[in-house]
Every structure is written in C-alpha cells, then in structure tokens.
C-alpha cells in the first residue's frame, strides 16, 4: 500500500521512498532522517524512538529498526536506557 509521505504524523514507510537517482529532494530527506535518528549526541535519559508504528525507514534503517525491535523485545522494555 503506497502512502503519502507529506501527511503529518504519518509513520515512515518504504513506500515513501522511491529509489530514483534523479530525485535529489528525496535523497536529502532520506539523509536527514538517517542522521536525526542515527546521529547526534546521546547524553543520557530514555531513548524513546518509538518503533512500533514505523514500518520501515529508508535504506539500511530497515536493519536498524529491526535490530532495535529485537533488542527491545529481549530487554522486555519499550524504551532503552542509554547511559
């Protein structure tokens, strides 16, 4: 099912990301999502990336999300303490 990436509060889906080399805007947005979710300083507190409603995020974030889901399931928690 294809979804509209421009809808606010809409979970990210692979269908939102046509993998076309000519689409610079999509590429930049994909890069932004990757860095906001996967980079930046982690100080402490609860890392509360909610994953239950995310189908998939572009490119190798499929692996990232899958791994976090696995880790959360193993830890028996909905948020991981990261300090």
């Amino acid at each position, binding site marked *: 099912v294809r979804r509209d*990436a*421009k809808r*606010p*509060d*809409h*979970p*990210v889906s692979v269908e*939102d990301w046509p*993998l*076309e*080399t*000519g689409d*610079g805007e999509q*590429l*930049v*947005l*994909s*890069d*932004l*999502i*990757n*860095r*906001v*979710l*996967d*980079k*930046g*300083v*982690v*100080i*402490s*507190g*609860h*890392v*509360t*990336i*909610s*994953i239950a*409603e*995310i189908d998939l*995020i572009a*490119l*190798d974030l499929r*692996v*990232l999300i899958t*791994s*976090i889901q*696995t*880790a*959360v399931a*193993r*830890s028996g928690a909905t*948020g*991981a*303490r*990261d*300090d």
Partner: protein
Amino acid sequence: MPTYLYCVLTREDRGGDVPAAVLGVDDGPVRQLVTHGLEAWVSTVVGAPPVATVETIKQHDRVVSAALATGRTPLPARFGQTWASDAACAASIGERRAELESLLRRVAGLVEMTVCTLLPGSASAASPPVAAADDAAPGRAYLEGLRARTNRERHLRTALEELRQRVSGALGPLARGEVAEIRGSERALALSVSYLVERGGEARFRAAVADVARDVATRLVVAGPRAPYSFAPAPRQPGPAYAARLPERGR
C-alpha cells in the same frame, strides 16, 4: 511531564533566544534550559514520547536548525531523548559537561555540509530470487540468484568507494573534518560524505562539488549548512538498543 532535548549550545548572555515560531516535536513551545554554563533547547512533551515520523523528525531538525541560525553551532541531540523533568535533564548534562564543552569548542564556527548520491541496483534485486516452477534445479537457481545479488552489491560498493575517494580528494582540503558513510543494499546504495566547513565557506564548498560533478557520471546532491550531526560522538556505553545495532553498521 517529560523534557525532550534537541541540542546543546554554549551559553551566551545576549541574544540567541529561541524564536517564538519554532515549535517542538509535539507542536509545543521550545525553551532554553540553562545549566552548568551550557544551554539546552528543550520542550515539554505531553503524554506518550514522540513517535518517529517524517514530520516529527523534521520538527526536531527545525529546532536544531533554528539554534544554528543564532550564529552559534549547536551539538544536535539524537532523536527521542527524554527525561522525567528539567532537573533530571540538567543533571545529565552536568555529568558530561567537560565532554560537551570540548565538543562544542571543536565545532564552534563550523557547519556541516553533506554530499549525497545514490546508485540504484536492478529492479529485480528488491525481491528474493524465486526459481521457476518447472526449473529442474530450483536450489541451484536460488543460490545463483543470491550470488548475483551479492555481486551487484559488491559492484555498487566499489563504484561508490571510488566516488568517495574523488570527493574526498577535492573537498577534504576545504574542511576541518570528514565522515563518510555508505548504506543500503543491492537494491540501492547511498553515499553520504559530511564535512565540517567554516561558516561563510558554503559557497566555496558548493563550487568545489560542482567541479567534481562535472567529472563523474553520478549526480551529486549537496545538503547543508546543517548542525554537525555527523560529528557528535557515539554513546560511550551503548545501551541494549544501540549495542544490538552497532554490529549491523557498514553492511
């Protein structure tokens, strides 16, 4: 109610206030939390922690970008960090004050510029290889399909690595730091090379990218200036989620 963190900056007594038009991940106001000689931009989140959607990710980045627009270079926080209160957030910042101050000194006066490109694989690579019903050796066909996919990914990675070397050779001398990343699979591989560039040097950087782009067949896209997401450190002691993720990197 939980306190959500966007970024950390050096404290300035004059100016640098949060613009009123900047809203947080749940459309709430963003405010400054001054602690231990540093300044954090935070908001109060109501109810459940923010869900990662395209819109909330953009909102997080808009706040960080607004901080960058004050003239100071913030340390962006990774999406999704919350504390039970402002006091708890301030305490965590205080515990890492020396490290944060060191990082802020490193990125002061600099912005992040990123060069991106994408190499698509073949359309058939998106689905698993399936042998035809009348195939006399379905197992062999399946394995050959897997091998072909592996070869395609290896070919794409080689091409991107060659491109990365060309980009680095041209742009590295203009920058104070460089981080390269190749991500994806045989379906498509993306190359992102991020640089720490002095404020005011963005036009020169873009011109240098244009020079490289004339000599390569792949389209190069420039993003920035941004806050230095790529130059913030990884967790020193990864928690279970990140510990599980780390071995997956570089695939």
